[in-house]
């Protein structure tokens, strides 16, 4: 059996086992949270938010991506816990590691599914946000949502957040795979993030803090001349870190004594 077939099987099994779990709902409902709140805000207070000269889409982008960038941190931690705890809680590491598939393939399937979940939810979030704008165009015509706007910005920013997230996401994933304890990765994750918020106020190396890449890496998207692929150094750092951590975590899982 070649490794592509094995990987397909691994991913297939991995996706199948999340049937009837809370996480599938979480992947769909969590991205709807911010768009839903935004819809409420625009319906109730749209006129206060948008001046007569403004393009309301710009306001919507800002109200979507900024809280999302903040909350996504917790989302990543929770998803990382979910994809690992499904094995920890059911004692199934020994089940999947005694199947005729190499440990590396089992591990890679998990990484792929984890990353797909994150990307899926982010893109869904962008889609929901655009739908909110289109809905407002119908519901509240006087807000001006009929003005021209490049909708692709929603998706571009989401992809940028995804890439900038990979660095710390890989750390969360490794910790969740390695430890059965749920609180440890959560505690370290929140600690990592808070430490960034403190360090960024004065420490010159804060820009190398993995939990800060998503905040620092988004760039000034409010600038009309903004190019989403312009400033990429945080993305490179994030992806580079992820590559290293995913490899180390893979070695760890391959060598691990499975109890």
């Amino acid at each position, binding site marked *: 059996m070649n490794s592509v077939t094995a990987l397909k*099987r691994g991913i297939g099994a991995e996706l199948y086992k999340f049937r009837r779990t809370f996480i599938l709902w979480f992947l769909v409902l969590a991205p709807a949270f911010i768009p839903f709140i935004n819809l409420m805000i625009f319906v109730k207070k749209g006129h206060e938010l948008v001046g007569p000269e403004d393009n309301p889409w710009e306001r919507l982008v800002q109200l979507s991506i900024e809280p999302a960038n903040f909350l996504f941190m917790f989302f990543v931690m929770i998803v990382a816990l979910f994809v690992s705890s499904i094995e920890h809680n059911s*004692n*199934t590491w020994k089940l999947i590691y005694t199947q005729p598939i190499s440990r590396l393939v089992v591990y890679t399937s998990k990484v792929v599914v984890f990353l797909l979940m994150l990307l899926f939810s982010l893109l869904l979030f962008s889609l929901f946000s655009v739908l909110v704008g289109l809905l407002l165009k119908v519901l509240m015509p006087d807000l001006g949502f009929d003005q021209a706007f490049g909708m692709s910005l929603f998706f571009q920013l989401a992809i940028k957040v995804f890439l900038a997230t990979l660095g710390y996401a890989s750390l969360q994933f490794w910790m969740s795979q390695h430890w059965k304890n749920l609180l440890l990765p959560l505690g370290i994750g929140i600690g990592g993030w808070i430490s960034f918020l403190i360090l960024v106020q004065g420490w010159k190396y804060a820009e190398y803090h993995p939990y800060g890449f998503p905040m620092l890496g988004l760039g000034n998207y409010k600038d009309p001349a903004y190019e989403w692929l312009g400033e990429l150094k945080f993305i490179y750092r994030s992806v580079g870190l992820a590559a290293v951590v995913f490899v180390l975590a893979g070695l760890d899982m391959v060598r691990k*004594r499975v109890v």
Partner: protein
Amino acid sequence: MPEPIIQTQGLDFYFKDFKALDQVSLNVPRGSIYGFLGPNGAGKTTTIRVLLDLFHPKRDQVRIFGKELLDHREEILGKIGALIENPSIYKHLSGRQNLEVVRKMVGGKKERVDEVLKIVRLVDNADKKAKNYSLGMCQRLGLAAALLTDPELLILDEPTNGLDPSGIIEMRELILRLNKEHGKTIFLSSHILSEIEKLATDVAIIDQGKILYEGKLEGLKNEGNNLQLKVELDQVDTATKVLEKQGFVISEAYHNGLLLSIKTRQEIAEINQLLVASGVQVYQLSSSQENLEAVFLNLTKKLDQ
């Protein structure tokens, strides 16, 4: 002798400084039901985890189907079904869906799921959520998962642990059926001697990481040529000291007596004299042929002394 289906040679295994397995050499004959017997903590589960590469052995220590385990890991695991200690089951899925997860990993036809459900007699409950399963059903589901690839070799770690009597009987019948009708070699660990006695054709006894006996079950019974002597007396401590000084092996001490293993009837008189001479009141001496349990206890307790 044909090549054993499992063969370990000089297998050592450490947890940090603790030597969990000490020169374990096993030869499991093809077609056998091989009982792997030992008290709790003797190294049974560790051995099994090593055989399945959950704990990595060193190269050339483990050969299965005549092939080196580490070099042919996936090929070998494809022909082994394993059930290790507590059940590995996704509780939120039904029994059938649990099997489906494994089937997706190993490939194979969808019909095989129904076949294995039939073998373990779980068809009626296949679509119930596994969290509503009894322990016996969980074990049977685990066995069904192990059977999905139609393996030549089954490695079962304490498969009757925690089951009620009817569950134990059911599991025992299932194991016998898999061996007789489906021709599978079964490697079975247990700390319950009577369990192994009813099933196994071959046994190995392990204690403190060392193999104390390996061979036919009948051979083990022959080891028990010894007589067992039960002495009722009043001063157990004094008696123990006196007898041990003379080199007798005491297998068990009770509040009102001792159990010893002896070679000849002559020794009974000797023991009596020794005890009387040291002022111990002897109330009763009774000897009997050693049963398997005594053999087992003797083998595993000798090390403590």
